[in-house]
């Protein structure tokens, strides 16, 4: 009798052993990845998302027509292939047999629905400005989508990673769709506890194959230091920029942690208001630029997390970037000469330069949410004061700052840009006289012409030439003084395997990641 029991037990043991050894028998155990993120998402509807966390989550729940690889080149995603039928017509052929998480099939109608909605002003899509050259989107059949443009638009492909929503689900859920996202992506939405965590689980029927992780949890930890501490203590497995420079310095040498650093798609820069009576003088702007100890700032305040910038061209723009175009560098003598040349001298010997009886006063603004920028402004103010400029800092919350920018109520502001995947993204709206983010009211017809040309030509050599010309002019006129190229840093627990970072912060690489 005992022998019979023994045999049964042995049999059971064997089955279990086999089950855990043979692939496919055991339950998918790619593990759970816990990510630490800084802000809570605003909405999980890809058409309306405007913050980084929302984009990270949306990248998992949705697919776009294309996806950007680590070199920022568009790769097929929902679109199997595409052709440019004419300079103003693009045709995308959709992958077959792709299903939404609720089982319904993806059709061209969903793509048309997504893009039409974004273009509709009533929806208030924050990124609508990137898609305005699209005049019409139509489904020529169930698997083909045709985009018609008002003019050739070179960056279009790069912006085609917009997540495709399910028309049926949107019709059914209405505004609730934002909190119950339904897409075709590698992970399905499970739950969202506000300001706490967002939980996703693997989509086993994903068209590329089931992702290796069974679960992804986004933990919302606003404080940079706490987030870094959470990684060190093992409470989260992965964190990425924004990070505090001193935490990065420490994480580089932490035993359990692997840090990857690369050049990112953001810049930190000084926006100079060309409409301001003082700043309008190009010599003042050049003098300012010459007073800024860029290397020191990057080394001391940013602890080499970012790199000193040379011009408005980003290193990540392969083929376009060159470090031969340089803004005025740190040169105090030249600064003093420029100020004198502009007519500012200390006539009353009070330590402050003046002209026509008015002291040279300057207010540098930035926003309170970024301690690094606050320190940079403090440093700049003290440097300017020692050079005879009556400088003052004004630090406000971000919306107040944006308000000031929009109304032109500022002189110099320290700000940043993120997600500049393409030179057009980093220059058109900022420097074109009709650009929607040209708060500094920069107006240069030559630059306008160049930017329009750059937008319309797809020839890489042409684009390179065009944008380098723009950068040269900007480096001379200085509506922007670019301080740093932001680095993109990912710090993860060493046991995480297979994560491929992408410079725009995208987590599309999670598909291949696993946590044993």
């Amino acid at each position: 009798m005992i022998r019979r029991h023994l045999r049964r037990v042995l049999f059971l043991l064997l089955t279990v052993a086999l089950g855990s050894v043979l692939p496919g028998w055991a339950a998918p155990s790619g593990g759970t990845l816990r990510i630490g993120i800084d802000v809570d998402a605003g909405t999980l509807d890809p058409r309306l998302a405007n913050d980084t966390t929302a984009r990270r989550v949306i990248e998992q729940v949705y697919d776009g027509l294309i996806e950007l690889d680590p070199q920022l080149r568009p790769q097929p995603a929902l679109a199997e292939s595409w052709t440019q039928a004419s300079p103003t017509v693009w045709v995308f052929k959709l992958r077959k047999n792709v299903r939404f998480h609720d089982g319904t099939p993806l059709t061209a109608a969903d793509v048309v629905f997504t893009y039409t909605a974004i273009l509709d002003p009533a929806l208030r899509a924050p990124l609508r400005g990137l898609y305005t050259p699209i005049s019409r989107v139509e489904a020529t059949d169930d698997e083909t989508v045709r985009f018609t443009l008002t003019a050739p638009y070179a960056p279009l492909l790069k912006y085609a990673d917009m997540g495709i929503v399910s028309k049926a689900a949107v019709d059914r859920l209405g505004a609730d769709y934002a909190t119950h996202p339904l897409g075709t992506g590698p992970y399905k939405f499970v739950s969202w506890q506000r300001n706490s965590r967002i939980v996703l689980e693997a989509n086993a029927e994903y068209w590329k194959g089931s992702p290796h992780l069974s679960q992804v949890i986004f933990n919302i930890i606003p404080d940079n230091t706490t987030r870094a501490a959470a990684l060190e203590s093992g409470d989260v497995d992965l964190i990425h920029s924004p990070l505090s420079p001193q935490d990065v310095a420490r994480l580089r040498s932490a035993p359990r942690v692997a840090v990857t650093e690369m050049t990112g798609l953001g810049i930190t820069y000084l926006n100079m208001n060309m409409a301001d009576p003082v700043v309008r003088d190009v010599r003042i702007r050049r003098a300012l630029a010459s007073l800024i100890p860029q290397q020191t700032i990057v080394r001391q305040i940013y602890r080499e997390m970012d790199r000193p910038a040379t011009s408005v061209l980003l290193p990540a723009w392969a083929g376009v970037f060159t470090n031969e175009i340089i803004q005025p560098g740190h040169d105090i003598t030249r600064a003093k000469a420029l100020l004198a040349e502009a007519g500012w001298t200390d006539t009353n010997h009070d330590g402050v330069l003046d002209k026509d009886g008015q002291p040279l006063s300057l207010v540098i603004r930035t926003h309170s949410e970024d301690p690094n920028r606050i320190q940079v402004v403090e440093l700049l103010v003290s440097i300017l004061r020692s050079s005879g400029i009556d400088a003052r800092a004004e630090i406000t919350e971000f919306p107040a700052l944006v308000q000031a920018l929009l109304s032109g109520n500022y002189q110099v502001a320290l700000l940043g840009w993120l997600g500049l995947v393409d030179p057009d993204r980093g220059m058109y709206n900022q420097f074109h006289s009709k650009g929607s983010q040209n708060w500094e009211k920069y107006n240069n017809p030559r630059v306008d012409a160049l930017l329009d040309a750059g937008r319309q030509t797809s020839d890489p050599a042409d684009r390179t030439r065009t944008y380098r010309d723009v950068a040269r002019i900007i480096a001379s006129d200085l509506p922007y003084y670019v301080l740093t190229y932001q680095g993109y840093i990912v710090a993860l627990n060493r046991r995480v395997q297979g994560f491929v970072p992408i410079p725009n912060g995208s987590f599309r690489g999670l598909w291949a990641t696993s946590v044993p």
Partner: protein
Amino acid sequence: MVRYALRRLLLLVPVVLGAAAVAFALLLLLPGDPAVALLGQEASGPDLVRFRHLLGLDRPVPIQLALYFWRIAHGDFGRSVTLSAPVLQLILSTLPATLELAISSIALAIATGIPLGLVAARARGTPLDTGTMLLAQLGVSMPVFWLGVLLILLFAVKLNWLPSFGRGAPFLSSVASGDLRALLDSIRHLCLPACTLAFFNLAFLSRLTRWALLEVLEEDYVRTARAKGQRERIVVYRHALRNALLPIVTIVGLQFGNTLGGAVVTETIYGWPGMGRLVVQAIGQRDFPVVQGAVLALALLFSLVNMVVDLTYAFIDPRIRYE
């Protein structure tokens, strides 16, 4: 007494509405508005105008206020501008977290602070007294966020005993369901934030208790009781303490009220998903509907708490008569 309670309840309404109106006014004075905040750097002139019109921000203020109250009366608290959910839902989802933190920290403060103050008062003049009061001194002077960061560094990073952020399972539901693991998870996450918050209140309370008790112990009726030969213990606890409770209760009420919304810094450091953090973010992002809704909710809570405090006065000290 009942009539008084009812009257106070009725008076709640204008107070709460008044608070909402003040919040409204304040928000409109803030530079920057939801349109700017939402569209952020992507904002362009015409988009802003359109957006403001959609939000009703271009109408005159009194009309906006009236519309707001009208909607409230119908139970519509609006939708958040920056977060994609109805305001009511956001508040209801974050309120339990804040309540959990507030109640546990106040309970901790009361349980530790008042006895400490009692001990100090009884042992007046001795090293025990001085020692306790110095400790209280530290608690009152230490900024919350410093303590928070220190505790995280010590317990979460160095010792790795406790988690460094976030909220565990909801306390009440894990008690109710008898799920021991959930309960443990809940307490583990609650521990550090509650202690951080409690420290200040605990210190304050101990000082206050000591002072109040000492004041009262010199009163005539106490001397009488002592002269009558009552045991010291009864003198202290039955007679003196009851009277000393008056300011203590006031302060506890105030502290509870403050903790509800003022746990902002603690919530930020620990990533605790509470209402304080929600409101601060909403202020920073000019998310008017959320701020207004939260103010209403908090106003209601506070007023209720204050009312309870007032009623407790009458219970403690029958000499306080109300017209």
